[in-house]
């Protein structure tokens, strides 16, 4: 099962996404932004980073790269595509997904272990989850505030196209992190942190939306990083693996 990972100038988490694919049991295939070929892969990941330095707007220039001329029609035709962070921004700029990202409302970069709720477990990338599963993966960005007009938001919600929502609850599960680190002996990288975002989502995203999917369920974008929650001791959990195991199964089944 071949999963392409695109490298744009400025992509940062491309190698990490390749690792995640490999750990999940797939074969990662590096795709170059300048080639308009997808090299016969079964799915594509647009990774995190600062493609083109986030110049103009995050993802605004990457969206016109040659690889996207092959990707966009393929995605419209059903190819599974996962956009992580900058990848999500590129998918929105390409209009493969609705909405847009602007600067975090507190105007700084934030890196934290983030709790999410799986809202849609039927997409190509979330089928290994169950609806309402809560997972903890990494959030790290400057421009992560998801916005769209009321009409679009109502439409997304109505059609069940919110894929993930930020869990806005009182305390990051201190107990859970401790149990996890005790169980696997890994020692969660961040331990227990004072949760400054206990009563609000971490970037001001409308309706706490962390990720969305298209109508067909093959294109999913989210701001947090599943590829950094796949190896004990190097992330807050192993919750990220299911993104990649899901798509491997969906490719087999398709």
């Amino acid at each position, binding site marked *: 099962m071949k999963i392409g990972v695109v490298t744009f*100038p*400025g992509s*940062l*988490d491309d*190698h*990490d996404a390749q*690792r995640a694919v490999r750990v999940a049991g797939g074969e990662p295939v590096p795709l170059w932004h*300048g080639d308009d070929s997808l090299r016969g892969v079964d799915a594509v990941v647009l990774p995190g*980073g*600062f493609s*083109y*330095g*986030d*110049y103009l707007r995050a993802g605004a220039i990457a969206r016109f790269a040659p690889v996207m001329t092959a990707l966009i029609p393929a995605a419209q035709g059903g190819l599974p595509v996962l956009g992580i962070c900058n990848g999500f921004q590129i998918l929105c700029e390409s209009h493969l997904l609705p909405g847009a990202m602007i600067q975090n409302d*507190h105007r*700084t*970069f*934030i*890196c*934290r272990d983030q709790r999410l709720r799986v809202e849609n477990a039927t997409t190509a990338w979330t089928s290994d989850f169950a609806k309402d599963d809560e997972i903890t993966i*990494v959030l*790290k960005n*400057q421009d992560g505030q998801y916005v769209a007009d009321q009409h679009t938001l109502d439409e997304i919600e109505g059609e069940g196209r919110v894929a993930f929502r930020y869990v806005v609850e009182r305390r990051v599960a*201190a107990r859970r*992190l*401790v149990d996890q*680190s*005790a169980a696997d002996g*890994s*020692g*969660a*990288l*961040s*331990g*227990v*942190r*004072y949760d*400054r975002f206990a009563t609000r989502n971490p970037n001001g995203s409308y309706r706490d939306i962390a990720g969305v999917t298209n109508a067909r369920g093959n294109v999913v974008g989210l701001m947090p*990083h599943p*590829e*950094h929650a796949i*190896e004990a*001791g*190097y*992330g807050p959990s192993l919750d990220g693996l299911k993104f990649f195991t899901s798509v491997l199964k969906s490719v087999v089944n398709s």
Partner: protein
Amino acid sequence: MTSPAQPHIDTVGDASTTPDTAQPWSELGLKADEYERIREILGRRPTIAELAMYSVMWSEHCSYKSSKVHLAQFSENTTDEMNEKLLVGIGENAGVVDIGDGWAVTFKVESHNHPSYVEPYQGAATGVGGIVRDIMSMGARPIAVMDSLRFGAPDHPDTHRVLPGIVAGVGGYGNCLGLPNIGGEVIFDPCYQGNPLVNALSVGKMRIEDIHLAKASGVGNKVILFGAKTGGDGIGGVSVLASETFDADGPAKRPAVQVGDPFAEKVLIECCLDLYAAHVVDGIQDLGGAGLSCATSELASNGDGGMRVWLDRVPLRDNTLRVEEILMSESQERMMAVVEPARLEEFMAITARWNVEATVVGEVTEGKNLEVFWGDEQIIDVPPRSVAHDGPVYHRPMQRPAYLDALQASVPDDLVRPTDGAGLRAALLALMASPNLCDKSFITDQYDRYVMGNTALAMPDDSGVVRVDEETGRGVAISTDCNSRYAKLDPFAGAQLALAEAYRNVCTAGAVPLAVSDCLNFGSPEDPAVMWQFAEAVRGLSQGCRTLGIPVTGGNVSLYNQTADVAIHPTPLVAVLGVMDDVARRTPSGWSLPGQAIYLLGTTADEFGGSAWTQVAHDHLGGLPPKVDLDAERRLGQILVDAARLGLVAAAHDLSDGGLAVALAEASLRNGVGARIWLEQVCARDGVDDFTLLFSESAGRAIVAVPRSEQVRFAELCVSGGLAHSEIGVVEDGASTLEVQGQFVLPLAELRKAHTSTLPAIFGAR
């Protein structure tokens, strides 16, 4: 070849025939005797371009003229045994260490202090950019950064001006490069009010055979400038900023601060790695302070031939720049490579793939000199060694500061101490809430710690740990430390204590210390008292390195950190790098499993000189810093490393600022798991009372959590290692408190609130 930008080109020929032309050597920062020496070296007056090159390369920042005589002690104190693991030592862009399995690691810490005061965001950003380029130029892939920041008083308006910008700059540049920030320091002290310190560290990895050096050799090899175009950034920045202090009338010259583009540097990283992998690069140098002047003269000086450069071929962003400005420009994100003609096409193909502009600007020649042309006209003809390596060497006068006797006599013994449990409890809360010891996640959450997926340990743990080899788990641990209050009381001891702390922090993670880099931040070398502090610190650090058996691989000196007569505390920052066979076995700093035994390693005496308690409770600085016993540190370190290897400890945390009480509090808060502590045995053994045991800052100590099943083996390890050890407590979960039996019970929730509220309250909660 003149133009509106270059109305008249001052050629070598002109210089020979017009010996008496008045030249602005003083305005460019040169002293009269230095100017004379240049005339002597050349046998004529220098051209304007040569004058510019010498002025910037002979500035304090580039030539280390005030510090050279003292820095020699580092090499002098490096034994053959210490050199064994060193692949590249002092003198190159960064030191390189053999970490086993064919892997090499390069690391260095550098300052960017003055620019960060002037323009906090860009100063800090370009500081990160600069140190990362140093690492890149050794042939390495950069894999992490760390930042050590020092500010004035937290509530001072100017701290509010510089802190957010500096933090945003460090994060903005490092995050965009895709480098995890794995640790550092944030320290507040009024002495840094007009002189904040930004010390940035980077570490990189490569296979041993891929080490690249900055030399230009091989007649006919091409010299290529690649990366960003050259503009007017930071012109005169080096010679102006690093050699002038700020006084009440403002800096003597208005500097142009460099502006960084991290995207350009990220692309440059990937491009360089592809160039190295293709083996098309013979020599490589990054352009940092003094830009082209430095890169060309250093490459030529390190090589075996001469070099000829055509300055008019340099791609310009701004074509109003004069030749001397082009030579001095500090535009960022530029590199210079030496390439065999046969590999040129391949080189250009790789840079083209990454859309990186690359221009052949020169070649290696048979002669000995560095020759620079503007078109057909020769503007520079100098022996490169005289520019890059044989600059002035000052023997500045040194004098023990007049205030020091009184300062050392002002011992903290009579300061009022808490006498009961409530007082001890309050003292601990005050310390944990104090700006220097409080939770720093307000700052460190602005840094990406996860990118590259190899970070095994990061702040607030004792050292940053990164995996180098994904198959074997081999990796490195790094810590940056300095207590400048100690160094003010005694610079020799202070430097050794900084080394000891960094050494200890690496060992608590379970890594074997291998090498040292240092960033020596001091006041004006023209002040004999400062010069004395500097000499003492270097003496202490170099001897300390020898005792611990780990060499200094390179570093940085930042002088003139003072405003009028007030110098910063001597701040000899020490970074220690250690290696681990498998970072999966690194020891975290906090415990998490109830029932484990807590041990205190090392002995405690009444030592409060320069301590956090005297600062927080009494705003006092006086006496002597804690005693240094590097042999004891070595024994402690060995036990921590062995215990980690044998799986005998579940957590390890070193004792430093705030002593035992703060270490216990930090280890409890780390995973939100409390502990019950008893002090009687150690108090009796060491002859100290509870207050002293809790807050004294005696060196050479750590706490560890030991699973019950391993206690016997652990105790045996300590006994055979000759290390004092005592079981002082147990990890407890149920009550979520930190209890010191007979004295106080402190709920972790209350401790956490005090610990985490400080910075958001001062700098704006989000």
